[in-house]
C-alpha cells in the first residue's frame, strides 16, 4: 500500500482512554466503542484495499450529541471521520489511527413525509431504498438510485453526491435535495434550505453535497420525491463493435431523447453476467446497450420506436423490446449483477469511476484494451453510457504478488485517460483517498488551493476527515498567505477548459 495518510499524533493516541471516557459523558456509554474486535468492523469502507482501525468509534443518537462531540473534538484538537453505512467506494470513510469515527448509523428515522409538498425529511442513516419504500404505496419515489441503494444511507449519498442509473434523466443527489441540517466542527448546528427552492444566500446546500465529509456532519436531509412514471419500457440492443454502440448512444442524445437510463456493457462483461444470471443477453455481440424510456405511455411507445430505428442505423445486430414488466426487469437483472458477476470470474476486481464525453466512448475502450496487454490484466466494462460515466472493472488476484499494485496503476492510467479526453476523475464514487493523489491530473495548484480555502471557511483546523480529497494538506494560515500575482502565475497563458 503506497497510500500516505496524515501522520498520527502520538500525543492524541496516548490519551485514548480519557477521550473515550469524555465521549461516554456525551452519548450513552454503550455507544462509545473501544474494543479492538468491534473496531475492526469499521476499519474500511467499500474500498477494502485500505484498512485502518479507528482510535474510537462513537455512535451519537441526536443532533445535540453530534454537536457536543464535535465541540469537544474541536476544543481538544481531535480528528473526526464521519461515516454513514460505509458502502463508499473511494475510501472516504477510511478511519485514522488518531481519529474518532463518527458513525451516523443510529440516525435511522424518517421524520416526516409531506405529500402535498412532495418531500421527505429523514435522518441521514436512512437507506436510499427506504426512502422510496416509504412513499411508493402513494405512487412516489426518490429518483437517485445508486446500485448499493439497499444499504447505502441518504447521508452518505449527500456526502458523495451519489448518482445511479436514472440520474441521466432525473439528476444526481444535489439536484434532488431541498434541505439539510448539519453540524459544523465547532458544534454549531445549521439549517440550510427546507421544503422550498433556492435557499437565499450562497448555495451551501449545493456546496456541502459531495463534500465527502470534509465540511460538516449531516444530521438531517430533506429530499424531493417524484410521482412514479406511468410507464417504463426497455430495449436490449446488441452491436458488432463498441464503436457502433457508441455511435448509437450519441445518436439517441443528439436525436433529442433523454432516456431514463442508457447502460452499456462490453463483451467480457456480457459473458460474465450471462453465465451468472442468465438474463438472456446475446453472446455473439461485442457490446450491448440497455435503453430505458419512462413517462406517459404514448410517449414511451413513440420513443422506443425512435431509439430502435436509431440503433438500426448505428448498426445494431440485435434488438429486443421488453414485452412486459418481467422482461424489463430481466434486462436490468444482468446489469445490476455485473459487479457480483465479475466477482465470480475473478478473485478480485477493482471498480473505476471516470466520466468521459459520450463521443469518446469507443476511443477510450480501445485504449483500455491496449492497456490490458501492457498491464497483463483484463477488464470488463460496464457503464452509464448516457452520461459517459465509465465503470471499468479491472480483474486481478490479490493473492498473486504485485497484482493489486498493477491493478491500481492500471486504474490510475484509465482515469488520467478520462481527463485527457475531456472528462473527469470521478463521476459518482468520490475522490476519497482512492483518487486523491490523481487530483493534479485535473487541477493545478491554484485550483486546489482555492478548494482547500473553502474548507478553511468551515473547518480552519482541518479536523474533519483530513487526508481525503486533497493530495497535499496545507494549513489554513499557509493558504491565506499563498498569493500569486497577476501575470506571474505559472499557467498565465494556459487556456482553461
Amino acid at each position, binding site marked *: 500500500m503506497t497510500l500516505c495518510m496524515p501522520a498520527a499524533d502520538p500525543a492524541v493516541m496516548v490519551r485514548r482512554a480519557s477521550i473515550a471516557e469524555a465521549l461516554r459523558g456525551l452519548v450513552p456509554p454503550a455507544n462509545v466503542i473501544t474494543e479492538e474486535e468491534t473496531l475492526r468492523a469499521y476499519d474500511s469502507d467499500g474500498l477494502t484495499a485500505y484498512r485502518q482501525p479507528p482510535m474510537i468509534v462513537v455512535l451519537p443518537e441526536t443532533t445535540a450529541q453530534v454537536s457536543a462531540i464535535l465541540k469537544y473534538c474541536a476544543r481538544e484538537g481531535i480528528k473526526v471521520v464521519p461515516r454513514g453505512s460505509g458502502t463508499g467506494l473511494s475510501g472516504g470513510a477510511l478511519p485514522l489511527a488518531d481519529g474518532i469515527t463518527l458513525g451516523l448509523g443510529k440516525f435511522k428515522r424518517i421524520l416526516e413525509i409531506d*405529500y*402535498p*409538498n412532495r418531500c421527505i425529511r429523514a435522518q441521514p442513516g436512512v437507506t436510499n431504498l427506504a426512502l422510496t419504500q416509504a412513499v411508493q404505496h402513494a405512487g412516489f419515489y426518490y429518483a437517485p438510485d445508486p446500485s448499493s441503494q439497499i444499504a447505502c444511507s441518504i447521508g452518505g449519498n449527500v456526502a458523495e453526491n451519489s448518482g445511479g442509473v436514472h440520474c441521466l434523466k432525473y439528476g*444526481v443527489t444535489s439536484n434532488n435535495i431541498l434541505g439539510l441540517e448539519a453540524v459544523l466542527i465547532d458544534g454549531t448546528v445549521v439549517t440550510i434550505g427546507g421544503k422550498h427552492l433556492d435557499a437565499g*444566500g*450562497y448555495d451551501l446546500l449545493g456546496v456541502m453535497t459531495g463534500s465527502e465529509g470534509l465540511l460538516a456532519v449531516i444530521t438531517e436531509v430533506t429530499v424531493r420525491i417524484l410521482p412514479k412514471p406511468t410507464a417504463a419500457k426497455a430495449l436490449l440492443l446488441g452491436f458488432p463493435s463498441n464503436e457502433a454502440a457508441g455511435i448509437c448512444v450519441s445518436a439517441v442524445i443528439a436525436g433529442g431523447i433523454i432516456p431514463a437510463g442508457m447502460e452499456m456493457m462490453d463483451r467480457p462483461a456480457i459473458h460474465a453476467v450471462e453465465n451468472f444470471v442468465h438474463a438472456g443477453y446475446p453472446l455473439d455481440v461485442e457490446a450491448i446497450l440497455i435503453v430505458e424510456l419512462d413517462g406517459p405511455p404514448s410517449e414511451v411507445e413513440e420513443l422506443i420506436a425512435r431509439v430502435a430505428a436509431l440503433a438500426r442505423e448505428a448498426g445494431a445486430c440485435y434488438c429486443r423490446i421488453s414485452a412486459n414488466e418481467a422482461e424489463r426487469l430481466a434486462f436490468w437483472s444482468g446489469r445490476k449483477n455485473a459487479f457480483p458477476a465479475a466477482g465470480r470470474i475473478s478473485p478480485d476486481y477493482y471498480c473505476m469511476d471516470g*466520466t468521459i464525453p459520450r463521443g469518446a466512448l469507443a476511443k477510450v475502450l480501445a485504449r483500455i484494451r491496449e492497456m490490458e496487454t501492457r498491464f497483463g490484466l483484463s477488464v470488463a466494462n460496464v457503464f452509464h453510457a448516457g452520461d459517459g460515466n465509465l465503470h471499468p472493472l479491472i480483474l486481478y488476484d490479490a493473492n498473486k504478488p504485485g497484482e493489486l499494485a498493477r491493478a491500481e496503476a492500471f486504474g490510475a492510467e484509465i482515469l488520467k485517460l478520462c481527463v485527457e479526453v475531456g472528462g473527469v476523475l470521478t463521476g459518482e464514487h468520490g475522490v476519497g483517498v482512492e483518487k486523491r493523489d490523481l487530483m493534479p491530473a485535473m487541477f493545478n495548484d491554484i485550483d486546489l488551493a482555492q478548494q482547500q480555502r473553502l474548507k478553511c*471557511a468551515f473547518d480552519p483546523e482541518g479536523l474533519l476527515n483530513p487526508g481525503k480529497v486533497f493530495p497535499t494538506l496545507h494549513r489554513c494560515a499557509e493558504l491565506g498567505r499563498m498569493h500569486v500575482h497577476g*501575470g506571474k502565475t505559472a499557467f498565465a497563458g494556459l487556456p482553461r477548459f
Partner: protein
Amino acid sequence: MTNISIASEAHLVEAIASATGPLNVEGRGTKRGFGRPAPSRPTLSLAGLAGVTAYEPAELVLDVKPGTTVAEITRLLAERNQELAFEPPDLGPLFGMAPDSGSIGGAIACNLAGPRRFKAGGARDHLLGFSAVSGRGEAFKAGGRVVKNVTGYDLCKLMAGSFGTLAVMTALSIKALPAPEKVRTLLLLGLDRTAAWEAMVKALSSGHEVSGAGFVPASLAPAFGEERLSSGVTVTALRLEGTARSVADRMTALRALLGGRSEELHTANSRTFWKRVGDVQPFAGDNRAVWRISVPPTRGPDIAEIVESIPGADAYFDWGGALAWAAVPNADAKSAEAIRTGVAAGGHATLVRAPDEIRAAVAPFQPLPPSLAALELRIKQQFDPRGILNPGRMWAETG
C-alpha cells in the same frame, strides 16, 4: 466612474490584482438594480468578454464566455432543437432595460430560473464547470464539461447565486438539453385559491409530467395578454411538454383528472404565456417594488393573503404555487416585515426591484441567521480577502 471593459482573463487578473479598493462587477448591466445598491466605484464590465467558444449538441454542452447574451445562446441552441432547460428569465425589462440584452454570466451569477425550476432545476444545476478569477487575483477553474462529476467540491453551485462577490467567471461550461417538440397549457378558469392549489398539487402529484404550474389572480389576468384571460376570473395554468401525441394524450388525461371550466393554449401561445410568467412581464411596466418569494408549495395561499392585505399590491405564482412574484406600491419597512414574517416558517423573500434608497434600508436578500451569516462571511473572505469584488452587494456586513 471608470468602466474597465475586460478583454481577457489575463486582463481581469491584472485588473483585480492591481485594484486598490472595491470594484463593482457586472455582465451586461441589465440587473444592476438587483441586490443592495452599489456605491459609485470603478466597474469591471464583462460585456466584451463574449462569445460561444464550443457547442457540441451530442454532448449536451456548450462553452461560453460570460458576456454572451442569453438571447444569442438561445438562438444558437434552437438551431439544433436544444435549449437552456432552466429557462433563464429575461429580467432586463423589469429593470427598464432592453429585452434580450442580459448576459449568461449574469443569469448564472444571480441563479435565476424560470417556470421549469421544480422539474428541470435552476441555473445552479446547469453550470457544469467554469474558469474564474478570485478576489485574490488568481485564475482558477472548477467542475468540468460532463454532467456526472464529483471531482472536488462543487464550486459551480457556490458561483451560481453569489452575485459576483466571490470570483469573476471568465468561461462557463453549460448544460444544453433537447427542447420539447410541443407545448400545451391547460388554463383552469375561475378557481378560488384553495381549489387552485388543490389542482396544482393534484397535477404535480400525477404521472402526467407537468412542467409548469402557476396561479394568476383575476386582477392580473389581463396582464398576461390573452384575450380569453381578460374575463375577470382567476387562471390556474398547467404546462405539458413533449412529443405531439404524448402532449395530446396527457392533456386529455389532465382535463379528466381536474375537470371544471378550462381553455387550452397550444405551442406558440404557451411559450408566450410562460415567458411572461418567468420574465415577470406583468410588473415590467409599472413602478411598484417587486418581491420574489420562495416558500414550500402549500404555503403559497398564505403568502397570497399577506400580499392581498397590503393596499395596492398584487401577486401571481409560479413553480406549482411555491414562488410568488409580488408588486407592492410602497416597499416600506412595514410591508417588508409583513412579507418576511410570511416566510419565517420556511422560505425566503427577495426584494428584487425597488428604488436605491429602499434597497439600502430594507435588506433585499433574506437576512440569514447569525451562524449562516458568519459562515458566508468566512467563505467570502477565503475567496476575496481584500473585499474587492462587489462588497456589500448581498449583505451589508460583508462590506
